[in-house]
């Protein structure tokens, strides 16, 4: 615990060293523990994480846009069981979103074209955030904008809101179209990404970490990650959906009203694992400072979550699987904990990025 929080202000070289020492130590510990324990039941795994200062009891989160803003899933599980509840991306003004059909089922996944439907930041801070606060949830608020200025405005209103003390972090959804750049998504361009992150960072107190959510639809995700971190991102969330399209073969036309949509679900998990791996590897090579990666993409089981964690994710979001099982975000957390316990790990953080030490 505390690895990211305690080292993020130190020099790059010492960060790498901390990481290496931590992993070397923990693997040996786990082996010793297992030998000593014998037939005794394994001790509980410490699942807590420190995400750039946000200390959470669990690495599990909802994924933005797959969980609404709390009330709906609170019928199925206690939202305080999560490390953080990630809200649906909110923009400055109310948005109706697109027409329908908005959804198409695809093999082990789905395509969606919602169009960032939402109440606008003012209604959000008046209704949704206070609800999360009274429920005792730790809120990770996802914000979006059509211009970099809109991101900043949304962050400013959030900061000034009464229930802001329920916020443990802000996720900056830069995977939305930039009207100033012919609708190219911010996260496809390092300069546009950096500008948004810098403006949002200015609006929020230092003790609130901000996470830039990256799209995998780029030639080199490390370049975007570097730009975001350099501009002040305290962490990275990856991945957003992949752009896709489905043709209705009866009508021979696009199935979605919005023509293209975002692909999500277990089908994209290998893409998420790859993206997390590449950015973590860049950190290990010193090409990028160590910041926590929040992994998201196709997680349906504890084993899926472990893939993302071993590739380098310090927290895991569950998105599309929630549509299949409304308890998925907490169920996956329990499965992950049991899996780590079976493997003899004492701490969740000991497994973060572990696969990088075990390459052939």
């Amino acid at each position, binding site marked *: 615990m505390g690895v990211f929080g305690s080292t993020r202000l130190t020099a790059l070289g010492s960060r790498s060293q901390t990481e290496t020492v931590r992993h070397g130590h923990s693997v040996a510990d786990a082996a010793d523990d297992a030998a000593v324990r014998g037939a005794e039941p394994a001790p509980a795994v410490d699942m807590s994480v420190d995400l750039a200062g946000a200390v959470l009891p669990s690495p599990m989160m909802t994924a933005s*846009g*797959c*969980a*609404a803003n709390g009330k*709906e*899933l*609170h*019928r*199925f*599980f*206690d939202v305080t069981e999560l490390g953080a509840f990630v809200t*649906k991306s909110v923009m400055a*003004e*109310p*948005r*109706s*979103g*697109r*027409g*329908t*059909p*908005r*959804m198409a*089922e695809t*093999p*082990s*996944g*789905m395509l*969606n074209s*919602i*169009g*960032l*439907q*939402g109440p*606008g930041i003012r209604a959000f801070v008046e209704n949704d955030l206070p609800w999360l606060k009274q429920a005792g949830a730790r809120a990770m608020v996802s914000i979006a904008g059509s211009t970099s200025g809109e991101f900043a405005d949304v962050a400013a209103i959030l900061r000034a809101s009464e229930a802001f003390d329920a916020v443990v972090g802000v996720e900056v959804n830069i995977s939305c*179209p930039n009207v100033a750049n012919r609708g190219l998504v911010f996260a496809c361009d390092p300069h546009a990404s950096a500008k948004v992150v810098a403006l949002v960072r200015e609006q929020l107190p230092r003790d609130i970490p901000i996470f830039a959510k990256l799209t995998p639809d780029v030639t080199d995700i490390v370049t975007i990650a570097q730009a975001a971190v350099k501009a002040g991102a305290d962490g990275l969330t990856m991945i957003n959906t992949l752009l896709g399209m489905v043709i209705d073969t009866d*009508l021979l036309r696009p199935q979605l*009203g919005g023509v293209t949509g975002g692909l999500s*679900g*277990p089908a994209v998990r290998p893409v998420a694992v790859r993206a997390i791996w590449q950015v973590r590897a860049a950190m290990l090579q010193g090409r990028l400072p160590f910041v926590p990666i929040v992994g998201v993409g196709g997680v349906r089981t504890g084993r899926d979550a472990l893939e993302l964690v071993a590739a380098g994710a310090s927290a895991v979001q569950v998105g*599309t*699987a*929630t*549509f*299949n*099982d*409304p*308890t998925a975000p907490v169920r996956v957390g329990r499965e992950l904990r049991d899996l780590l316990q079976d493997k003899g790990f004492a701490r969740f953080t000991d497994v973060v990025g572990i696969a990088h030490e075990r390459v052939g």
Partner: protein
Amino acid sequence: MSTTAARPGAGVVQVTGELIATRRVGAYHHLTFVAPGLAEHARPGQFVAVAVGGPTSANLLRRCFSIHRVSPSGTYGGTVDVVVAAHGPGTQWLTDLRAHDEVDIVGPLGRPFPLPKEPVPTILVGGGYGSAPLFWLAETLRERGCRVEMVLGAATESRLFGVVEARRCADGVTVTTDDGSLGHRGWVSDVLPELIRSTGAGVVYACGPMGMLRSVTEVATAEGAVAQVAVEESMACGVGVCMTCVMPVRGNDGVTRMVRSCVEGPIFRGDRVRWESFENGYCTVPADALGAPKEGGH
């Protein structure tokens, strides 16, 4: 058999339901599941969301079915009945199930049919297997002293559902088929105006395809009756988190919003739905809806 999730007071459960009966009814399949804890909360018009294909299924999205009937207690404990038409891989999987197979069920979901406070005459209109929730509704209405007429319509006889059951639980039954294979040749909207007039119906309940719901609303409104319609929008989750099942509906404040048919519906007052937005398989956002796209789109 287990209840995997049911927070106290939530009014909804997630259960592993055992299939105890499956039978063909015309073009459809009628399935009965043991679903402990679900029946007690359910009201006519609510629905269940069913996971298909088992725990490693490649079909992730839940399939939603209006509840045909529930039985809170019996030989097997509480049961829930749904009617399924096999037209895709998920519904095909469900109709291929055998007795004692298990399915993950979430329900009851959505808002039920609102019931009149006074014992007014009512008409219940079902298109195809859209009639599934209406028999339970008919019994509930008659218990409250409402006269119940049923109108069942479909393309052809095999696509009607529940004609015999309707005769048992309604005061009168009218059947229409497009091809005239049973009852009146034509649409439900052909017989509805005269039926509203002759019975003095104050409420028309309807469940079926969007086009039918629109014409039922138009007829009911023209005849001075209130239409309460159960919509069939495709849903991914059924519990209010995916935002795919939205449709434009005017609220009490007169403002049109894109509302989720799973949590704000599936029952809407017909005259609140912006039917003109539905065309050719698409639904567009009305320009006056809250937060509608500006020139050039979102």
